[in-house]
């Protein structure tokens, strides 16, 4: 052990106090989730995480008393990492541009939804199948993997993530979205939407009809005929 080591490391704060503070902060971050209010949860979770990390770094890692060169080593790494991240993130954040669509990303979105049955792989549905699809007896969860295209099943497994199972615009994904997903049960929604607008929104994304870009383009997964069936299904939700 060198002399420098001795003189920079005589500092030992009351570790028990810091430990108790850390545990209390942990409890606060968990309790925050019960508020059900998004911004409180976020502040509780991430604000508290930053405070906890600072407490650990300063007192347990002794950064508070460490020579400045160590802070530069850590700080420069952090800044370079952020710089690299900022440089590449714009390309990753988008899944489509004027001349391109990232189908892999759209497929990943589709995979993120439970009981997804790859509607694109099914043969284009016949009129008889679409009539069968309208029958309310078929439930989404019970549909077999190789089932033919069924607009209701597709809606309940894919669209419902944001638009809600009943199309009320209140799916689990809706909380994080602004503007909110369309509510198909609301008569006001239908005042200015023709079928062709809706088909375009489904196949080319919300941005193609001047709506939210959070609505993905499903054109690589749904055929034109399937998009038409989806629109027909949306009409059945009206005023429910």
């Amino acid at each position, binding site marked *: 052990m060198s002399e420098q080591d001795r003189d920079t490391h005589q500092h030992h704060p009351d570790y028990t106090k810091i430990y108790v503070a850390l545990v209390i902060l942990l409890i606060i971050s*968990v309790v*925050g989730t019960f508020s059900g209010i998004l911004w409180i949860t976020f502040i509780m979770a991430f604000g508290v995480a930053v405070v906890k990390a600072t407490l650990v770094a300063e007192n347990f890692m002794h950064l508070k008393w460490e020579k400045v060169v160590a802070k530069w080593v850590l700080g*420069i790494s952090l800044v370079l990492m952020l710089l690299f991240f900022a440089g590449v993130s714009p390309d990753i954040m988008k899944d489509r541009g004027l001349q391109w669509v990232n189908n892999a990303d759209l497929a990943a979105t589709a995979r993120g939804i439970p009981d997804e049955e790859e509607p694109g792989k099914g043969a284009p549905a016949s009129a008889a199948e679409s009539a069968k699809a309208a029958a309310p007896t078929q439930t989404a969860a019970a549909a077999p993997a190789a089932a033919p295209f069924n607009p209701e099943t597709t809606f309940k497994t894919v669209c419902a993530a*944001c638009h809600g199972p009943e199309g009320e615009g209140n799916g689990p994904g809706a909380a994080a979205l602004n503007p909110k997903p369309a509510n198909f049960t609301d008569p006001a929604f239908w005042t200015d939407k023709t079928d062709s607008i809706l088909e375009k929104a489904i196949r080319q994304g919300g941005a193609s009809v001047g709506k939210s870009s959070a609505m993905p383009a499903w054109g690589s997964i749904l055929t034109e005929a399937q998009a038409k069936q989806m629109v027909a299904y949306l009409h059945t939700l009206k005023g429910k």
Partner: protein
Amino acid sequence: MQTPIATTRSATGIPTGRLAIWWLVASEIVIFGGLLLSYVMHRIGHPEWAIAQAHTHTFVGAFNTFVLLTASFTAVKGHEAAEKGDGKRAAKFLYLTMGGACLFILVKSLEWTSEILEGFTIQANGFWAFYYTAAGLHALHVIAGAIVIFFVARDAAKGRNLQRVEYVGIYWHFVDIIWIFLFPLLYIAK
């Protein structure tokens, strides 16, 4: 045992061993920082991940956070003891930290087993891919830490290389900090 000259020589005012640990932590900042930020970016772009994330067990995550915080506390108590020259006491604290690491891995194995049995594998979708990658890389660091801590503690008990108690502690606290951020990202911000 003869102490190698490199552990005392220093141009920065920081003992070389400790400086090396800071460099290690700096490289870990790049690895985990990039991974966690990528997760945040994809999570914002994929609101439907909320469906998958609803299946993570908040209390299991919170318990493991508590375990790691406690293990960090014992590691720093070990450091304090080592600086007073009490190698035996330092070793005792380090063994407690090692026990915390083992408990963490045990809880994580049970948690993952139940999730995998429910069908949430690394290939299920983007959320689970990030979940297993980020938490898995972190778990590997916990395992590596536990192994290194064992050897440092064994030496410390014999009064040897007491400065290493602090060095291994710095690494361990960093692993704790990573989890402090992983916990809200994977378990709370649903």
